């Protein structure tokens, strides 16, 4: 259990998707004008990462990895399909997003109203595919660890986008140098927030 908490905390603060790896920057910059929409998109990212990372984990360990097909028959124990992982992961993500969208629409129209417009955006959000690829690279040993990593990364992303949206709402009243307005100042603030987040690096987990 403690391992899971460690992985979760580590992926929220130390390996934050935005501040340490810049994943999902496109939607981070585009949808961070108001806090309300930022919370909506952040929640959708947690949701999708929490679902796709475990699925891709199963896919990686029982289909794609070298020798992963051994459970089917001994003849397949040598097969290494890892070169297919990009296309499999992106297919899983795109279809999961579609599926989640349909299920949410059916079960909870209110949630769909809140998340609806953001869900299609998420299929091409780098942080989702990035989550799958980091999961593959770091080779988590159980599906629970992979899930903790997925949820943690999503939560870190939500934290980042809500923080920047709150700052951008306030900065509207400040006198920013004209050429820096909008994009430029957002970059600088994100950089400063990144420096602040680096102080978590000293934590040993």
């Amino acid at each position: 259990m403690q391992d899971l908490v460690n992985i979760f905390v580590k992926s929220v603060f130390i390996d934050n998707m935005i501040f340490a790896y810049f994943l999902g920057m496109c939607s981070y910059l585009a949808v961070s004008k108001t806090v309300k929409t930022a919370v909506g998109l952040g929640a959708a990212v947690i949701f999708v990462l929490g679902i796709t990372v475990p699925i891709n984990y199963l896919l990686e360990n029982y289909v794609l990895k070298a020798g992963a097909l051994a459970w089917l028959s001994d003849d397949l124990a040598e097969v290494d399909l890892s070169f297919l992982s990009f296309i499999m992961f992106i297919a899983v993500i795109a279809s999961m997003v579609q599926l989640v969208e349909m299920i949410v629409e059916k079960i909870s129209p209110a949630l769909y109203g809140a998340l609806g417009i953001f869900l299609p955006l998420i299929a091409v959000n780098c942080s989702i595919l990035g989550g799958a690829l980091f999961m593959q690279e770091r080779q988590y040993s159980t599906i629970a660890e992979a899930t903790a990593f997925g949820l943690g990364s999503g939560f870190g992303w939500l934290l980042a986008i809500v923080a920047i949206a709150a700052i951008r709402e306030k900065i509207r009243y400040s006198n920013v140098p004209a050429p820096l307005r909008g994009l430029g100042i957002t970059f600088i603030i994100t950089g400063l927030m990144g420096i602040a987040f680096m102080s978590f690096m000293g934590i040993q987990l």
Partner: protein
Amino acid sequence: MSEKKEALFSKKNRKLMTDPLDGSNPISVQVLGICSALAITVQVEQAFVMSAAVMAVLIFGNLIVSAMRNLIPSRIRIIVQLVIVAALVILVNELLKAFMPDVSEKLSVFVGLIITNCIIMGRLEAFALGNKVWPSLLDAIGNGIGYGWILVVVAFFRELFGSGKIFGFQIIPESFYDAGYMNNNMMILPPMALITVALIIWVQRSKNIDLIEEN
């Protein structure tokens, strides 16, 4: 009635290629493909390889999608585009692993992330789907270079001030270090990439005031 054939490098076509270098730069103006632009700019070599990879995927993706644009049903176009791009990225990744294993190691997941690089999807969606093959090719080259130059410039400053080297060669002489000069380790850290890009945006927008945004 014969339609006048457009010259290969007519003014309009040249504009397709030169616009993305400055006025509609994919990174600093269209805000596409930021993720990879920031993460792999610690060294100039990585930045070069990454821009070449993105450019290759962009060019072939644009060509294929533009050639197939009348065959792709619009309801499933996103999936079709993703599959085309993913196939191209797999090719690029295998080539990098075979010929430049050490660079491929350093780029780690960022080669795979070319699939979801917004520049690729953005250009396919906004341009290749509605235009003929030749203009799409020019658009891809222009955007590829527009992406590449920002990457290389950011990487140049980060490597120069961060480790005193360019392409791995020592640029700042030993005597400087003896005199008390120190590498700025800050430049190697991720946040400085953001601030360097912000400075480029600052310079670009002070020159070209049409690009200034509302606060």
